[in-house]
């Protein structure tokens, strides 16, 4: 979906779906998202009737609760031109998975489909819909970028963050080996199968450390908390941040799981 359907010169009205983890753990990602969206020419709204996209219920097989949550999200956000989330996995939940929850209810299914068309992950929205090429940020850092799974494989978020990062003044990107391989987070997986999750994230932080970068970026806070938590546990000096923080030039807040020295 592009901005073509909007009246010429009209400011697109964007509903920011902050995601529960950003809301609870890292509000600065929310503010960075707002800044990036406003800079791109959007009018940003943050509906208070938002909690979570429903993935914990959905991925545990609890369809009834998932559907109730989905209805609530759709009702709160369907009035906007766009719905944007600073997370590939939550955006994909809204965009790719909501319509399927209403397969037995034609009216709701159609409504969910119309809603789905408006939903975007933040970075790809900036890049593909708002045609942002340079966010005007500057940061002296060598970063490595982890492709979070849902964003990468369900929404095709891969080049957009890298292209925008390439235009951040002073920033260099060093790719890690297997940047597209899961970090082992997987929502409730990381606690249900914590040993396996640990094996996966151990491999991941090994690759991060070997990349030679001093900062890890990604577009999903769940993955970032997992990787940051492991990096810290292993005593690594690599800092972890959401990519939006860097693109918005808002890196004053200490990194994830970091004390900011």
């Amino acid at each position, binding site marked *: 979906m592009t901005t073509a359907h909007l009246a010429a010169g009209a400011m697109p009205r964007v509903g920011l779906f902050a995601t529960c983890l950003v809301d609870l753990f890292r509000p600065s990602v929310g503010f960075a998202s707002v800044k990036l969206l406003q800079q791109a020419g959007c009018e940003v709204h943050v509906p208070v009737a938002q*909690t979570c996209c429903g993935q914990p219920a959905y991925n545990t097989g609890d369809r009834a609760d998932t559907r109730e949550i989905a209805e609530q999200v759709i009702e709160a956000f369907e009035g906007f031109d766009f719905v944007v989330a600073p997370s590939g996995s939550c955006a994909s939940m809204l965009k790719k998975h909501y319509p399927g929850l209403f397969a037995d209810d034609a009216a709701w299914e159609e409504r969910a489909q119309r809603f789905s068309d408006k939903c975007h992950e933040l970075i790809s929205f900036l890049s593909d819909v708002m045609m942002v090429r340079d966010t005007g940020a500057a940061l002296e850092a060598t970063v490595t970028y982890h492709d979070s799974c849902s964003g990468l494989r369900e929404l095709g978020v891969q080049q957009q963050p890298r292209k925008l990062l390439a235009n951040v003044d002073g920033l260099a990107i060093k790719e890690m080996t297997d940047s597209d391989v899961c970090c082992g987070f997987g929502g409730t997986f990381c606690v249900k199968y914590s040993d396996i999750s640990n094996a996966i994230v151990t491999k991941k932080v090994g690759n991060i450390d070997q990349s030679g970068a001093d900062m890890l970026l990604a577009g999903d806070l769940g993955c970032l908390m997992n990787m940051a938590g492991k990096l810290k546990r292993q005593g690594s000096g690599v800092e972890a941040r959401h990519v939006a923080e860097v693109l918005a030039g808002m890196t004053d807040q200490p990194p994830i799981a970091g004390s900011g020295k």
Partner: protein
Amino acid sequence: MELAAKHFKTNASKALVDQQLQKALGNVQKGFITKRRKSAEALPEFEALRDNARDIKNHTLAHLDLYLEEYETKVTEAGGHVHWAETAEDARRIVLDICKKADARTVTKGKSMITEEIALNDHLAANGIEPVETDLGEYIIQLRGEHPSHIIAPAVHLNKEQVEGDFRRVHTHLEDSRDLSEPVALLSEAREVLRERYFTADVGVTGANFLIAETGSSVIVTNEGNGDLTQTLGKVHVVVASIEKIVPTLEDTSQILRVLARSATGQDMSVYTTFSTGPKREEDPDGPDEYHVVLLDNGRSSMLGTEYQDMLRCIRCGACMNHCPVYHAVGGHAYGSVYPGPMGAVLTPSLNGIDETGQLPNASTFCGRCESVCPMRIPLPKMMRHWREREFERNLTPATARYGLKLWAFFAKRPKLYRLAVSFGMPLLSLFGGTSRRFKSLPLAGGWTRHRDLPAPEGRTFLQAWAQRDTLKQEATSHGSTP
């Protein structure tokens, strides 16, 4: 094999500290992934072929009864026999009967997952017939009394030193001083030892990658040539195949062949693709005197028309497990079922029921890499989620997870109450985070903090801070941080 899927978690934890296994699993990640990517990239039509392969199987499944009948007619016309088996037990009985009629003492076997599924070897052995696996990997694990840990690389969990040990233990007729330090020496020895077995075997049993309705042919796709020796040199060739192996035509087979080897081993074509149609003809100087096909259902027909039907498109290439981070971490044996990895996590509950196998579809991060490489575009994560739904409906989800989820959902469905709770809770949690801004341990978060620190929340929630953003702006001027 005995189903041990309910012990997945324990087995996985053991696998994670098994040094030999971990070393061997490194080979899965090194080889298969790069080879598949390169061969897929070298064929511009690869994605279009995947689409068509999917469509061919969908068409076939929608007309499966008719294609099965057509296939049976053609096999019979070519002088072969088709035997229908509803269950694994039926299939075992049929194969045993054929072997007994042939007075068989030894049966050679080509590599076949379906005979693992029906536990044919144990059944033959229990009835005084010796099954001899001839695929190198299968031969190795037969010597060890193990089951395949991978559907196309059965011995991928082993290192060459372990194989050397097994060969020295079993091949006692050979010189002790021989050098078996390199894989090539191990392969030569297996070739020599197995060569005589082909000639003394009375019956050769193979699986099939495809059964072609148009011609009544069974197709095997191999690299070693053992499958061909098995089915050519025995007096009787028995093909064991499940009903969804049917494809309509030779052209349809060719389409799927183009994605099969590339997805499996990264080859454009496997070395040997053999189309067998009936027994030896009158004028033929070689080939089996009898040709039998055991058509097995064993739960497939119950998957048709359900949300698991897409799984019947599977061509057993192994790409899903080759790309699975969970499989990479724990290997195939931890799954405790015939079929490991993502395809097993969907298929095993279909074949064995969800009660004992619920761990398998839960042990996935839903990273989606399996689906992204599946040549048949099977939505594996979606179907694993469907199994979690069946579990949840039937109250099979573990109680703690269920109550935790219900509590969370109670709040998630009530935004006002949720706001109240988190606007109180998160600043408090933040406070406990101290100056390190992370937790090394935290009550109720042991699953997380056992292996990694938990980042402390910043303080106020985003929605709280957003509501108070005017105040924030003033703070921002003094601290120069937030907008």
